């Protein structure tokens, strides 16, 4: 996955993401594609969660999956999550759960609870940073004020790091793939460098929904695992999603 929160020169925040999933879950030799990724694409839906006929939040989901991976609380915050690999992983959390230790939250139920119940960027940020989980994760959160964009790097128990947008330091965007931002990504899976190259080439003056989509459409940021691309604008309260394909030749991940 690749998630970006960017702030344009007017202080407006944009949030984009590619949802890549299905690695090693069966390769279709004939079609040169991942079996599960292709089966997930028809399940992609946009959901408008309403209460008293008012929109509470909107999301892009795989039908049948009740948790959240991509969502917007219109005019308040935007949220995506990317997978984080760690030896202290979800299987340990599941074992604890089965043995009766149930003080942690399943990752996608936490994101769903935050989108449904949090009413500010700061409230969402503290819930995502402090709630004990069953598995590690990256939460990428965008707010509705200038400077409100961050990557929360989570272990099961702790918030390991929070990287914020800081325009004074020249950091007008935060970008997360699936590696801790203070470490080099795995050299065979470096989607960070090409994404940063394209964002820097775009420049803050030209970042927009349109150019953010261009970045998320550039191989290998776009790859055989990419099921959908979502673009969110918190100030407009809009979420738009597109099902993707990566024509050959294309990186398998």
């Amino acid at each position, binding site marked *: 996955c690749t998630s970006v929160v960017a702030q344009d020169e007017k202080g407006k925040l944009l949030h984009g993401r590619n949802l890549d999933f299905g690695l090693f879950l*069966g390769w279709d030799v004939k079609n040169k594609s991942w*079996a*599960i990724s292709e*089966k997930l694409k*028809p*399940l*992609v*839906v*946009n*959901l*408008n969660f*309403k*209460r008293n006929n008012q929109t509470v939040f909107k999301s*892009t989901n795989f*039908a*049948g999956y*009740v*948790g959240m991976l991509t969502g917007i609380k219109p005019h308040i915050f935007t949220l995506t999550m990317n*997978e984080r690999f*760690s030896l202290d*992983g*979800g*299987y340990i959390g*599941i074992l604890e759960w*089965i043995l009766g230790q149930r003080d942690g939250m*399943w*990752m*996608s*139920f936490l994101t*769903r609870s935050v989108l449904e119940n949090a009413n500010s960027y700061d409230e969402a940020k503290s819930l995502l940073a402090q709630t004990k989980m*069953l*598995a*590690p*994760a990256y939460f990428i959160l965008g707010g509705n004020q200038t400077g409100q964009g961050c990557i929360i790097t989570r272990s099961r128990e702790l918030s390991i790091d929070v990287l914020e947008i800081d325009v004074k330091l020249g950091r007008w965007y935060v970008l997360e793939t699936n590696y801790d931002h203070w470490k080099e990504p795995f*050299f065979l899976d*470096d*989607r960070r*460098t*090409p994404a940063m190259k*394209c964002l820097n*080439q775009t420049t803050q003056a030209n970042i927009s*929904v*349109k*150019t953010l*989509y*261009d*970045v998320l*459409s*550039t*191989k*290998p940021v*776009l790859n055989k695992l990419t099921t959908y*691309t979502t673009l969110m604008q918190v100030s407009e309260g809009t979420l738009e999603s*597109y*099902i993707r*394909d990566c*024509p050959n*030749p*294309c*990186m398998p991940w």
Partner: protein
Amino acid sequence: QFVPPYTEDCRTDMYPPNGPTFKGPVKWYTIDLDLPPSKRWTAVISDKKNDLVDMIQAIRDLADAFVPSGRLIELVDIALPLMVDTLPNPFREEIKGIAAVSGVPLGEVVLFNIFYEVFTV
């Protein structure tokens, strides 16, 4: 990380989405949070039932490839329904509602919803 043609120069003018990398738009549905949790997903799952069954079948085939005896799926179908009642609401009831509407075994809907934690294995 520059190995053309698997990587490329930064793309431009890809928006509005078009061409071979755009496989189609995404349909909107409303989830009414005033409904009982077990009823909230009925419209979505009624529409996407065949695709969901298809995807679950692909995961079954994968499991059977790892454990040809079929025991892995049996384990999922026996053990995970026991687990669903340990999940917090409203997720527990929503998952049960999805299994009821789609006809997919409850254990397999549970597996789909906790796949993130399982997949870290």
